[in-house]
């Protein structure tokens, strides 16, 4: 099947190095300490952060740092066919772990000992790149909850189909059987915290694709910084500064 036409257009009309349209909002769940929604093309996720709060399970309490927990779940209607198991299946557990570890690396947990920070992500619509959208949404939610962090974490995916590196794969491109490289970075510190790849790639092409994904992450970081700035201006305005 042709994923990149001879004129250089992908199935959804994008160019190979073009990302899907991004849209983010903060403070979407009133009850949460911090929340955000993140949309990448047709993938829509909502993240909510509760904490720092009292540790639910006393035996897991840590005296020198905060406990970070994460749960990823998908809505029944988020994929083309209605799903029966939305969480607790292997894929969801793996993604929960990945998101937790990625964000734990940047939260200053030693500032909040004996407490728990819960990050919940709910996928409302899945069209490829859910992992990345969830990490981006969680970053914004943590910022909305005023949880101290070293840096924001942004994530993006890239692949290689029809001999072309492609940025930000959608579901069809992801299921094509080609490689899927997901990267998460701390943009200011210029460090990679998450790197996952499946399928096969020659090493020199992998370097290209990973670099492309990192560029995508930086583009997401620029957008997230705009959103954070806008949000801060709103807060200042409401405070009468």
């Amino acid at each position, binding site marked *: 099947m042709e994923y990149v036409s001879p004129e250089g257009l992908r199935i959804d009309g994008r160019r190979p190095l073009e990302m899907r349209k991004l849209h983010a909002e903060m403070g979407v769940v009133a009850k*949460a300490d911090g929340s955000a929604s993140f949309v990448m093309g047709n993938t829509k996720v909502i993240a909510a952060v509760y904490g720092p709060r009292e540790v639910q399970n006393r035996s897991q309490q840590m005296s020198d740092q905060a406990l970070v927990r994460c749960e990823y779940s998908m809505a029944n*209607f988020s994929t083309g066919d209605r799903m029966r198991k939305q969480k607790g299946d292997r894929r969801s557990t793996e993604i929960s772990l990945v998101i937790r570890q990625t964000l734990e690396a940047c939260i200053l947990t030693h500032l909040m000992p004996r407490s728990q920070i819960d990050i919940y992500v709910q996928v409302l619509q899945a069209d490829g790149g859910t992992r990345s959208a969830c990490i981006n949404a969680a970053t914004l939610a943590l910022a909305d909850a005023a949880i101290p962090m070293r840096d924001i974490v942004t994530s993006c995916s890239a692949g290689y189909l029809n001999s072309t590196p492609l940025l930000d794969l959608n579901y069809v491109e992801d299921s094509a059987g080609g490689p899927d490289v997901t990267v998460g970075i701390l943009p200011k510190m210029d460090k990679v915290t998450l790197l996952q790849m499946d399928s096969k790639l020659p090493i020199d092409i992998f370097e290209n694709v990973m670099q492309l994904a990192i560029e995508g992450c930086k583009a997401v970081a620029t957008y997230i910084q705009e959103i954070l700035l806008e949000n801060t201006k709103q807060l200042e305005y409401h405070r009468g500064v």
Partner: protein
Amino acid sequence: MGLPNESGDLLSKMDSDASRRLFPLRFYESHLSNSTRPDGRPLKSAREAFVGPGDVASADGSAMTKIGSTTMLAAIKMEIMTPSADKPDEGSIAVEFYMPPICSPLVRPGRPAEIAPVISKQLYDTIMSSGMIDLKELSLTSGKAAWMVYLDIYCLDADGALFDAALYSAAAAFSFLQIPVVSLSEEGRLTIIPEEGNGDKSDKDVVNKGKRKLTISSLPFSLTCGLHKNYILPDPTSEEETLMETFVTVVLNSSGHLVSLYKPGGPVLAQTSTIQDCIALTRQRMTDLQKSLDEAITEMKMD
């Protein structure tokens, strides 16, 4: 807790946020005695309700409703199934209500919300008994194929009046529903054609071309009122719900008939007059809800 005088003095010296947390009942009752509620509403007023299409591309119909901060997202997916042997001419509806951990600080992964399956059942019973959907209309071929309608409602933010918002989103989702197009394959099996299907097949085999909308005879609308001492407080927020021990939910349909009445126990006993007051409040509420929904439906048709 100390003598009543003590906490009273403390109350006057403390700022309102602290007294709200430490003495919630007193805080609340001091508002009630001034004929207002903590969020500034008059006593008998329900919060404004918003309804709109849910924008879920993968669903056949979806709606999002908000009552105050309470947010519900309802989505309907339809699949073809074989009807049961004792009801060969009827389809089936499955209703499920979820409270994912994002919606409330009280819901945690190991501790699911107790109220979720209760509301699930309440919704299912209300939708089926209201006669909103005629199951016979869901039949495609008698005895061989019928529609299975899956209605999933997700609470994205829980701030009281969960059942009301969920029922409203279900009513809206059914109103926005577009039945998928179905075609007959060579082996005589009915299959759903996806939206971007082949253009050349479209007219020949389509079985239900003209029938893309369900006939909805009448929509149910509800209002939950909390009963506290002598007060009837419609549409409680989650903070108010913790203070009230008794609730009455009244469901009316658009023809003005009483569809369901739900008062699940509780220490406050309700006299007939109280119930009638609740019904009157629900009737008022229904006019507003219906108007907003009609506006949303017209807007959707214009797109």
